[in-house]
């Protein structure tokens, strides 16, 4: 069974194909209105995430399919002590494909080991969030027109920010990419990620604690939120949450064609005054998420059908 647990489950060629499908959906949505007729997507959100869940549901509805599920663990049998394996075994009888978010790292992998239908990881703790990365890639494709030769700045919580790790993994496969890692000491990219996807591949990179010093070098600035739910200690969260705030003044130091991305939701790491800057891509980015999820659902359902035949 083909699943999407981490972004590297997809080859560069497969991502290119999905981007082409997403482009076609954006151009001709009417051609896809019945593409998933009589198919059901289950959205199992053991951790609340309105944005991602709605994006999945909008994607399935846009394909003419049905949606069922729950939006937090308290409204599921998890509160009664049901295991992930049991939940998936049951839901697999009601749905053709499952999108799952869970606070525990590796939960979607466990689900994939017990599922009779494709599993999409919609975020597992601070670990992976591959559909956000697909969204990011579609955004870069549309806003920059290419993946190669880009200088990508990642700013904020690079330690717990799973979207950051997945984007580094994905972008490290394209030639000529450079990374600029901007974070406080406590929230640096984990050494395993840096070693495996940057150093071992010989990719040029720079680390900085100052956004102002490096913003002028960037083609893409990927801002992240410091997430309260990833900290065991409230004091650490309060100390680190406001370490980078993107303002109009800092945007004046950036290239005229740099784009600002953010996986959203934003708290206060990007001033609302930046929203009107044409380089602010984050709301367009959220819209792209629906189309790439449509392409992903189509791909996994098609492969599941081919497996059955």
């Amino acid at each position, binding site marked *: 069974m083909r699943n999407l647990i981490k972004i590297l489950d997809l080859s560069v060629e497969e991502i290119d194909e999905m981007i082409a499908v997403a482009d076609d959906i954006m151009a001709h949505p009417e051609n896809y209105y019945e593409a998933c007729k009589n198919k059901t997507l289950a959205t199992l959100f053991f951790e609340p995430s309105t944005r991602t869940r709605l994006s999945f549901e909008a994607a399935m509805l846009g394909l003419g399919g049905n949606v069922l599920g729950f939006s937090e663990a308290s409204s599921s049998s998890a509160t009664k002590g049901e*295991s*992930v*394996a049991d939940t998936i075994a049951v839901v697999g009888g009601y749905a053709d494909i499952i999108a799952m978010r*869970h*606070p*525990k*790292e*590796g*939960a979607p*992998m*466990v689900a994939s080991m017990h599922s009779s239908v494709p599993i999409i990881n919609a975020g*597992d*703790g*601070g*670990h992976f969030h591959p559909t956000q990365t697909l969204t990011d890639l579609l955004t870069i494709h549309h806003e920059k027109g290419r993946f190669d030769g880009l200088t990508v700045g990642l700013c904020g919580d690079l330690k717990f920010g799973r979207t950051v790790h997945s984007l580094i993994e994905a972008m490290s496969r394209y030639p000529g990419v450079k990374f600029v890692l901007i974070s406080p000491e406590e929230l640096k990219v984990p050494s*395993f990620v840096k070693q495996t996807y940057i150093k071992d591949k010989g990719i040029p990179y720079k680390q900085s604690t100052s956004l102002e010093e490096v913003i002028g070098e960037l083609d893409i600035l990927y801002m992240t939120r410091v997430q309260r739910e990833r900290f065991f200690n409230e004091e650490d969260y309060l100390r680190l949450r406001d370490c980078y705030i993107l303002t109009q003044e800092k945007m004046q130091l950036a290239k005229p064609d740099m784009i600002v991305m953010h996986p959203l939701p934003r708290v206060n790491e990007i001033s609302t005054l930046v929203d009107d800057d044409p380089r602010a891509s984050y709301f367009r980015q959220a819209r792209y998420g629906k189309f790439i999820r449509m392409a992903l659902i189509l791909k996994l359902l098609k492969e599941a059908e081919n497996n059955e035949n």
Partner: protein
Amino acid sequence: MRIDSIKDGIVIDHITAGKAMQLYQMLKLDRLDCQVAIIKNAASKLHGKKDIIKIDSSIEINLDVVGYVSPHATICIIRDGVVNEKKHLELPHTLTDIISCKNPRCITTTERGIQQIFELSDPEKGEYRCAYCDTKAENK
């Protein structure tokens, strides 16, 4: 020092010096009724010192445990007082239910009946990572 020779059993030789007790515990040799001898800091031409475990019974040994703790160890199967078979080990690619993940955010901390799976991520350093959450295994 004299240890009676084995007629039918197993000798785990060339164990990294100091690792015999860890192996003894991980292989659960304390549960055996037969004689088990642990020789620490025996002379080794290759490494100066080594540990040896002699088991006076033909039991099944989990080779992945031995390969993980001491990848240069050898296992000699003794039959009728002679070496019947000698196995050279290496770091196993996958460890199943041998070590457990210490990441409190890992699904293995809450999911019942789940196998603990670690995969070899860096053969040079002998580094393993949890297959579920990618957390590095603690030092052996």
